[in-house]
């Protein structure tokens, strides 16, 4: 297993900068994460499992995680209403670094300085959504049908 490449005539370029395995149907609390990937939020030292959800408008972080991040998430622009699969919630948009973790020997981590909704009402998993996060990175999933290893590939859009 290795990186993904793009080929144009005889030139090959790295498409992905890192990759790691991911979990499917992982249960967390009351919730089931269809695709769970590992990430680090802000400068937190621990690693979290997050739901990768291309259908989610925004990434979402719960109140406890925000409490650990403390001042790092910066001021809020005021609360907004958001529709989630758990119903309507209130939350505020903040800018934060989220790092996707590559496994050893599988390239490099990728940090995205993006936008998340911080909601104290949210008791679900950390969600990585499209707006403010996925819209400027490459992602690909190999479901591991042939070699039984599920792999999440990622890379920056800009060189």
């Amino acid at each position, binding site marked *: 297993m290795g990186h993904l490449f793009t080929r144009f005539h005889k030139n090959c370029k790295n498409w992905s*900068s*890192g990759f*790691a*395995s991911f*979990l499917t149907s992982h*249960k*967390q*609390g*009351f919730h089931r994460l269809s695709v769970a990937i*590992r990430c*680090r939020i802000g400068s937190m*030292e*621990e*690693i*979290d*499992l997050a739901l990768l959800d291309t259908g989610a*408008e925004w990434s979402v972080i719960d109140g*406890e*995680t925000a*409490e*650990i991040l403390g001042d790092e998430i910066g*001021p809020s*622009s*005021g609360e*907004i*209403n*958001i529709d989630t699969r758990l119903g309507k919630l209130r939350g505020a*948009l*903040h*800018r934060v670094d989220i*790092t996707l*973790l*590559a*496994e*050893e*020997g*599988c*390239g*490099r*981590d*990728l*940090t*995205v*300085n*993006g*936008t998340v909704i911080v909601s104290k009402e949210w008791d679900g*998993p950390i969600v990585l959504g*499209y*707006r*403010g*996060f996925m*819209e*400027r*990175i490459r992602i690909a999933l190999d479901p591991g049908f042939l070699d039984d290893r599920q792999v999440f590939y990622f*890379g*920056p*859009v*800009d060189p």
Partner: protein
Amino acid sequence: MKGSPNYGYADSPYWNDRMAIRVVIDDWENDESPNKRFDCAGESYTFDQSPWSYPVPKYPIKASSSIGTNFRDGVHIEKRIKKLVESGGISEARRFLSFIQCGVSERIDHWRRVLAKPRSRSEKMATGANFEKDASWLVKNSFKYKDQWVALNQGLLLGSHKSRVELHRRLKKAGKLRGAMFFKVEQE
């Protein structure tokens, strides 16, 4: 759909900007009109470049509310941005903000900051260890920690607690936080 198309799909709450952009690109390639203009919900837009950086607004805009005339004070601008964001018109909110100078108000500058497109950078190394051991530990032991947070590192339990914040605090104090993987164990 040549000339100045009126995109009816913009009113549908089920269309998001991503899907709308694709339709505009198709049309843009075929559109031979010189001024590259389209109308949406009573407002006209003229583009000097490809429209995929200016997606179709979803939120209906009244003809009288053209940008730069009725939005001179910060409160109205902020209300408009908030409404666009809540209705899913993120691209439109970004475009709207691009018309407004920096420094109108701190809150608007904050909106500009949080709605800016994300930036990515590759780090110098990989820091994610293989988590097969952690996954295996969860399969065998998680039933003992129902409704709790557990912290694992390479299949070793570092600690558990009902509160994530408290578990974080304890591990930090013990110097065991780096590389710890946090899981919320399944509830019954």
